[in-house]
């Protein structure tokens, strides 16, 4: 007699008969039917439960919020999915929490959409969901709506995640790149290039090994500490793709100012510098996933820096430069030997070079 446990398995077209597939994701998991529900219950809900998700609607309904809202969405594509210091799950929640928090908003809710390649191991998916749950708990946000789709083998590179975050902006909060003003101090919350090098090493293409871990982390609590100490902070931004150099250029252009950096004050781990020297990379263009640029009026610079240094995620915080009025829209670097150069945006992709 045929039972659920001894039905034959099928490749190819989706079979309407619910089959038990415990190890890997198959097309049926994305069809919206019983298989999807089982996957959601078994993997997603097991680790991500909260009252809003528990209502089991297609939408998440949140209590009313008075005041301005910050909303941010991001899609996450990374190879490899698991790297020293984190994974795509931690990356997606942290990234969106940070994008919301840099407005000065308190991040509250997150949604997540998953596009999974047929054949993806369920155990890996579960690890990623657990990671997202842990990161959400660390940040104090709730995941209130989600979606799962499955793409045929080869149509997606293992797993793509999209996250959207919602946060509440306190009154009188005016933080943004355009507010950087001449005389402001430029601070960074820690060492640069860790994530970029950790991921590059994990990919293995360049054949080098290092103990560097990604710095991926939700920074909303650190930001809270900074804003308590320095309530007139002008700019908060995390230097992700394109690194510190590209991000500072964006701010300089938004505010029509010049940002002048002191090279020997910029914190870079020894191993990151060594990897960059070997490959011909510049650490200022590497991605960071757990660092914050802070631009504050000079009067509050000391307090902001101290607040960061006291926080576990800001131990290597440093003052790295100042904002000036000219040459506007530019970032300049003062070198340790007394010279200077322009620090431009990243053009294209950084590639290992021999010259």
């Amino acid at each position, binding site marked *: 007699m045929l039972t659920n446990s001894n039905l034959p398995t099928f490749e190819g077209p989706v079979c309407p008969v619910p089959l038990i597939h415990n190890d890997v994701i198959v097309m049926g998991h994305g069809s919206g039917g019983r298989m999807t529900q089982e996957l959601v219950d078994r993997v997603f809900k097991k680790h991500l439960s909260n009252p809003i998700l528990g209502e089991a609607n297609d939408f998440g309904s949140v209590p009313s919020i008075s005041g301005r809202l910050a909303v941010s969405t991001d899609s996450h594509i990374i190879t490899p999915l698991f790297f020293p210091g984190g994974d795509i799950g931690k990356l997606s929640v942290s990234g969106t929490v940070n994008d919301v928090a840099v407005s000065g908003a308190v991040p509250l809710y997150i949604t997540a959409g998953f596009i999974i390649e047929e054949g993806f191991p369920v155990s890996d998916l579960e690890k990623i969901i657990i990671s997202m749950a842990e990161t959400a708990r660390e940040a104090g946000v709730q995941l209130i709506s989600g979606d799962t789709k499955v793409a045929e083998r080869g149509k997606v590179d293992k797993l793509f995640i999209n996250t959207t975050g919602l946060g509440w902006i306190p009154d009188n909060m005016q933080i943004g790149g355009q507010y950087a003003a001449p005389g402001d101090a430029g601070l960074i919350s820690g060492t640069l290039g860790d994530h970029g090098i950790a991921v590059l090493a994990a990919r293995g293409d360049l*054949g080098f090994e*290092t103990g560097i871990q990604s710095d991926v982390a939700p920074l909303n609590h650190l930001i809270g500490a900074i804003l308590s100490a320095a309530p007139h902070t002008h700019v908060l931004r995390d230097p992700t793709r394109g690194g510190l150099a590209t991000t500072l250029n964006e701010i300089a252009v938004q505010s029509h100012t010049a940002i002048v950096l002191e090279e020997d004050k910029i914190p870079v*781990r*020894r*191993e990151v510098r060594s*990897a960059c020297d*070997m490959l011909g990379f510049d650490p200022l263009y590497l991605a960071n996933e757990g660092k914050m640029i802070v631009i504050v009026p000079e009067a509050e610079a000391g307090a902001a820096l101290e607040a960061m240094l006291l926080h576990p995620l800001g131990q290597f915080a440093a003052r790295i430069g100042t904002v000036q009025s000219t040459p506007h829209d530019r970032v300049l670097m003062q070198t340790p030997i007394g010279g200077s150069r322009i620090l431009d945006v990243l053009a294209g992709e950084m590639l290992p070079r*021999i010259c």
Partner: protein
Amino acid sequence: MCLGVPGKILEIYDSHSIRMAKIDFGGVTREACLETLPEARVGDYTIIHAGFALNLLSEDEANETLSALAELSLIEHELGSEGF
């Protein structure tokens, strides 16, 4: 043409009869070819370019250069053309 960085030799071994080494670049390790430095030993420093050791890096020569430059800054007359 010129991106070469110092690295310390941690291990030396043969791979398909070619002399290879594991190099420490200051917390980052990678394999490099040591075929043209038969005299190199574990603990030596080399300049590595594109995964290949160009030549040995001498700490003694480095110190000598620095001393000579320091002297130069103190002395008014020229040292002559024999170089450092």
